[in-house]
């Protein structure tokens, strides 16, 4: 597991199963730290499924959101996929406002997100 910490913000990346990676984000994902998520996502192999755990992510701005969306596009283009789960109130609201709440990106739980990515792959 790789962990990067800064001002209470941290990203933990774990290869959770063959072809699957989990990224846990803690703290506030904004323009000051979004490059750390970009860097972590760029290290994910092609064709991998990625689950981003947002249960401890208390805030996301448009820069952080763009990192997640770009990461998803990259994984999809390589034959993989990306989903997030466990969004807190502000993050859920952000997804709703920008129209991402209903497009298969965000799920309530790890189980729902894992199941959705497995279905998409099969």
């Amino acid at each position, binding site marked *: 597991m790789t962990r990067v910490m800064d001002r209470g913000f941290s990203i933990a990346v774990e290869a959770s199963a063959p072809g699957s990676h989990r990224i846990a984000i803690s703290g506030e994902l904004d*323009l000051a730290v979004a490059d750390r998520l970009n860097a972590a996502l760029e290290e994910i192999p092609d064709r991998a499924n990625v689950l981003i755990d947002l249960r401890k992510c208390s*805030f996301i*701005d*448009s820069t952080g959101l763009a990192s997640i969306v770009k990461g998803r596009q990259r994984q999809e283009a390589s034959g993989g996929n990306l989903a997030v789960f466990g969004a807190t*109130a*502000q993050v859920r609201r952000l997804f709703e406002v*920008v129209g991402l709440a209903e497009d298969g990106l965000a799920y309530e739980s790890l189980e729902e997100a894992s199941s959705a990515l497995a279905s998409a792959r099969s």
Partner: protein
Amino acid sequence: METTTEPDRLRLDLPAEPDSVAIVRRELEAHADMLGVPASQLGDLKTILSEACGNAIRYAYPERAAGPMRITIEPDGEELEIHVCDRGSGLRPHRDLTSKGGGFGLLLISALSKSLSLFSEIGKGTHLEIRVLIQQPA
């Protein structure tokens, strides 16, 4: 950083740099009661302030070290009035807001606020004025 609180008014003077945005969110949270902001609306206001400050940080001082940024928040009747001002280069909307993937932050502010006004003068700076309807307790 300089924080000034007057009755019902919060003023923050910060450098327009990425680490300042988290400070703005902390100060908003700390003064939410004074400003009459309910807890249920804090998330939206943090988003609005982060995007407004983000614009100043990205565009105001492109060719030199971070200059100043002033944030003022005060209630006005049933609304909250927010000003984010810099003394930077001024926005050239077509060049600045379309060439760097910018502009999305302003759309987000518009979606979450009652009104958004942008005043900008080349070489003198940019001023965002945002008005948000404060949610009243049910």
